[in-house]
Structures are given as structure tokens and as C-alpha cells.
């Protein structure tokens, strides 16, 4: 009997191994993620005196900037995810052709991803000011007459639409590389023969891309898009760097605005907590809808 004791312990330990391996992550998330999240949830449900209330959400929904922020965010998400996906896919397909110098090309395309937000901020701020490098370049190229200037971010004609377009382009510039590497890895892991078979049986570049490459790439596309979708809804820093608070309100910018810019108000904390919860709910729902619509859940159901 004594001989069986150590054996069962070993077996138990072996069974427990994966759980022991993931335990640190779970504990870490509990302490450094769940705890602050709970704090925010509680903050969103209590008033300044600590009493339970739903009033905070009502305040957020009645905030004059809530709906503009919501709409701006929605437009940015739809446009930027679309543009970024197409751009990233294009670059990934190009690099995957493995032409001479494609490795250096890859490195160069990754540079926007490596640049810190403050560096890109500095880059676009100095570009978009009236006497910045963008106008200078246009002048040298002959598109701008002497003394003529485009007021990219300001001036009378600075309407929301123009600002949105600029923000979306600037965001795409920085984000495309990180989406591209995921797609590129997926492309490189596709067996070459499947594409070759497509060509042998009479496909041209576009049909092979549409009928073979893209469907096989689907899990990778899902990964790339869901990651991007989640962070696109939370865009704000580049907007504040370029425009400051309030000129082009978006949802997460409102969180920071209430907490950092107007911390003195009675309702500041409640407003920022309320906004946070609403943003989280929107992100979760969007992610869920996307995963469901794109069929990411299907394989688990089938298994």
C-alpha cells in the first residue's frame, strides 16, 4: 500500500500541471485587472456620497458630447478598420511575394509600428501646422502658391468631417504594420501547393486570391480584425495630441477628459467611470457580434 502513495501524488501533480502553469496569469489578472475594473464598476454605480445609483449613466447619456463622441467613434471604427485591413492585406501580399529586398521592405514598413505615440504626435503636429512640413512640401511641389497655406487642423473650414478624415488616415498610417504582420504570418504558413494547385487548374491571380488564399486565411483575418476592432473603438490619444480635448470628441477621450482635464467637478469621477463602463460594454458587444458573424465560434461548437 505504501508503494502506491507516491505514485498517486505524481499522477495528481501531472494532472494539475496545466492549471499550475496558468495559475500565475489568473492571479495576475485578478489583482491588476479585475480589482481596478471592479473599482470602476463600483464608481459607476455610486454617487459622490457613496450611495447606489444609476444616475451616473443617465448623466453620461445626457452629456452634450456623448452622442457626437459615439458617432465619431463609430465612423472612425468602421472607416479605419476597413482601410487598415485593405492596406495591411495589400502590403502582406506584396511582401509575401518574396522579391529581392523584400526583407528590408518589410523592416521599413514596420517602422510606423515602432514609433512611439509621442514621436508620431510630434510628426503630425509639425506636419499639420500652417507653416509645417506638409504645406512646405506642397509648396515645393508646386501645389501651393507662395503665401498660400492650408489650415489642416484649424481655420474656419475645419469641420468635423475633415478632422475625421485626417484622424483616420493618421491612425491607419501607424496601425497598418501591426495588422500586416499578423496577416503576413498567416500567408507564410499557408502551404504553397494549395495556391499552385489553384494556378494549375486555371485560376488567375485574383481568383486564386479570392477562392483559395482568402478562405484559408480566414482564422488569421479574424485574429487580426478582432484585435484591431477592440483597439479602434478605444482610439483617443492621437486625436488629443493633434486637436486637444473636445474638438473631435470620441468615447475614450471623454473618460480622460473628465478625469484629467476637469478633475475638480463633483461629477468628474462618476462621469469618467460611467463612460468607461459604457465603452467596455460597447467593445464587448461589438467583439461578440464580430466573432459570431465571422464564424469564430463555429469551430468550437463543432468540436
Amino acid at each position, binding site marked *: 500500500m505504501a508503494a502506491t502513495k507516491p*505514485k498517486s501524488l*505524481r*499522477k495528481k501533480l*501531472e494532472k494539475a500541471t496545466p492549471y499550475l502553469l496558468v495559475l500565475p496569469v489568473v492571479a495576475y489578472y485578478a489583482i491588476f485587472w479585475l480589482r481596478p475594473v471592479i473599482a470602476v464598476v463600483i464608481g459607476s454605480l455610486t454617487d459622490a456620497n457613496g450611495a447606489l445609483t444609476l444616475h451616473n449613466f443617465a448623466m453620461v447619456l445626457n452629456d452634450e458630447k456623448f452622442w457626437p463622441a459615439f458617432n465619431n467613434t463609430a465612423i472612425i471604427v468602421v472607416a479605419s478598420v476597413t482601410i487598415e485591413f485593405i492596406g495591411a492585406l495589400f502590403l502582406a501580399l506584396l511582401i509575401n511575394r518574396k522579391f529581392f529586398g523584400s526583407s528590408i521592405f518589410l523592416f521599413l514598413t514596420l517602422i510606423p509600428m515602432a514609433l512611439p505615440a509621442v514621436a508620431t504626435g510630434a510628426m503630425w503636429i509639425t506636419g499639420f501646422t500652417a507653416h509645417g512640413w506638409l504645406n512646405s512640401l506642397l509648396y515645393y511641389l508646386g501645389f501651393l502658391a507662395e503665401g498660400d497655406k492650408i489650415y489642416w487642423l484649424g481655420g474656419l473650414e475645419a469641420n468635423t468631417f475633415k478632422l475625421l478624415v485626417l484622424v483616420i488616415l493618421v491612425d491607419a498610417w501607424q496601425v497598418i504594420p501591426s495588422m500586416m504582420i499578423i496577416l503576413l504570418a498567416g500567408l507564410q504558413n499557408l502551404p504553397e501547393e494549395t495556391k499552385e494547385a489553384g494556378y494549375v487548374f486555371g485560376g488567375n491571380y485574383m481568383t486564386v486570391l479570392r477562392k483559395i488564399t482568402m478562405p484559408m486565411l480566414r482564422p488569421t483575418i479574424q485574429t487580426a480584425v478582432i484585435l484591431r476592432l477592440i483597439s479602434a473603438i478605444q482610439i483617443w490619444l492621437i486625436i488629443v495630441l493633434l486637436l486637444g480635448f473636445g474638438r473631435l470628441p470620441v468615447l475614450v477621450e471623454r473618460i480622460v477628459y473628465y478625469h484629467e482635464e476637469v478633475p475638480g467637478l463633483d461629477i468628474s469621477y462618476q462621469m469618467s467611470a460611467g463612460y468607461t463602463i459604457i465603452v467596455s460594454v460597447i467593445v464587448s458587444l461589438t467583439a461578440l457580434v464580430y466573432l459570431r458573424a465571422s464564424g469564430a465560434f463555429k469551430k468550437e461548437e463543432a468540436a
Partner: protein
Amino acid sequence: MATLEILNVTKRFGRKVIAVDDISLEVHDQEFLVLLGPSGCGKTTTMRMVAGLEEVTEGTILIDGVDVTDLPPRKRNISMVFQNYAIWPHMTVFENIAYALRLKHMAKSEIDRIVREVAGMTNIGEYLERLPAQLSGGQQQRVAVARAIAVSPKVFLMDEPLSNLDAKLRVSMRTELKAIHASAKATTVFVTHDQSEAMSIADRIVIMRDGKIIQTGTPEEVYEKSANLFVADFIGTPPTNFFDVTLQKSNGTLHLVNPHFDLSLDAANTARLNGYNKEQLVLGVRPENIVLTSEKDSIMGMTALVVEPQGSHQVIAFKMDEKMVKVVAPSQPKPDMGSTIHLNFSQGTLRFFDPETTFAIGD
């Protein structure tokens, strides 16, 4: 050396999937035992349980009489050649072979001696300082074998070690493995799905199917005395030809009757079927036991559909009731394709099977 006993071992994955179903098996000292079966039959799982890489759900495994069922692999005194070789790509050939010896805290000079000895045995002496990536598939295979024999294990396990080699190399490595086994004298368990490999290399073959052992025996036994339809079909190329026949008795002799032939059995075969009282029977005849004869000695005349000369012999195929029947005959005389051939069975080698149970009758 050592014996290996597998006693009533079962392996379940999850609740439903039974990979190995209550098998028992003994491997004798210095024996070369082959576990043979189609993919998914449980042979690799059985071997991995012996290695300790797979937990045993029920049952006991003994090496030299010692219960190793719950010991980790390193305490079992075994070694293994993996299907994909599993030689470590970041270590040189020398380090690959020496790794296990170092873990045993052997003296440096001793390790050096053993590595050079096994490298000599496997003809990789000149590659000791190379990395695996610089070796061909066959050379990598030799490294895996050298690594496995260096530790002088009690039991030597090989999991389809030749399946990644090209056809020609596979046959020559087969001979070499047999020679290495003869000199190393290790108790060996060898897993394969290739019956000709099993036939040529094994002292004893264990045929598995659906997690169960179907037959155990020497290559000759499983070939000549196949226990059931599955084994008779699985072993041998071309496989056994099967004929559905009806048993008829007239004048004290038994006849096996089929629309194409009427075979009257000799006394010995009649005796074998004495206790059998069903009307239907499956007759099994090995391709080399169907003989080309003159019209007068034949029991049937068929149209030769395909004639494949093989040099030393020829394979003739004809069709009977939509089923292809193959005959292995001496290379002469060579019938023309489409001509009529006259055939008989050699009575001493007939196999009878019960169509309902699929088991052999009259052994």
C-alpha cells in the same frame, strides 16, 4: 537483458475513446517483437504506454518483473527511436548521443568511448561534430538509433522508425537494424503499419486492430496460419484471395462449390472441416498457391486480365465476380493478356474461414 510484460492494459482518451482495449502480451528476453496494424489500431499508444509517455488507464506493465506502470520514462531503463527521429536540432550528433549518458553522470572518457562505439556501429563516426540539419534523412535516422542503443536499455522501443525514409533506404535500414539488434541483443518492440517490414524484421509479430490483439506469432505463423480474414488479408503482398463457396458432400468427399469452380477436397482437408456444419465458407488461397496447369488438371479457366512480369516471378490477375484475383507464378510460361489460363489450387495450403465469425477453421 530483460523481459517486458503487458498485463490487461487499457487506454482510454476521455470517457469514450478506447485506444487500447485490455491487451496482454509478453516480450521475451532479446526478442525482436513487432506491433503491426493499420493506423489507429492502438499500436503506437501501446508503445507509448511502455515508454511512460502515455498514462495507463488500467492494467500493469512489468519490465524484468518490476512494476513500471507509474514510473516516469526516465526511471524505466528504456530507450526509443521516434518516428520523426526527435533528434535535438541544437545539439551536435555527439551531444545528441552523449546527452543520456551525461544524465547518468558517466565519466567523460567513458561517454566518449560509448559514443564512438555506437557511432561506429551505425556508420556515423565521421559526422559526430555536425548538427542534425547538416545530415540527410538516413543519417538522422542513424543518429536516432545510435542515441537509443548508447544507453544499453532493458527495452528498446522503435515507433515506425523507417516510415520517413524513401523506399530503397527503408529496405537497407531494415537489414541494418536487424544486424544491430543481433549484436546489441536488446529486447526490442518495433511498431509499424508495413506488413512486409514486419515480416522481414520480426522474431514475432503481434497484429493489432481496433485496440485489440488479433494474432501473435512468428512471421511464418501469421502468414501461413492467419487467424482470421483480417490477418489473411493484411499480411502478404499481394494479399490472400478469398472465395465465397458452398460446402457440398458427395460420395464421402467434400466439394467447395462456386459458380466458377468445383473443388473436391483431399482427405486431409476433408478431415479439417469435419466439425464444421455451416453451408457457407470462405476459402482463402495465397497467390502463390494458385497454380497454372494444363486444361485437364484445372478446376477453372479464366481470362488473364493483367500480366505483370517481376523478373523472378510474375503476377497474373483475373476477375471473378467483380473481384480481382491475383496469382503469383514462376516467370515462365508467360500467358498473353486476354488469353485463357487454366488454374488449380494446391491443396496443402488452403485456408478456411467462417464467414460469420471471420475466424479460421480447421487448424
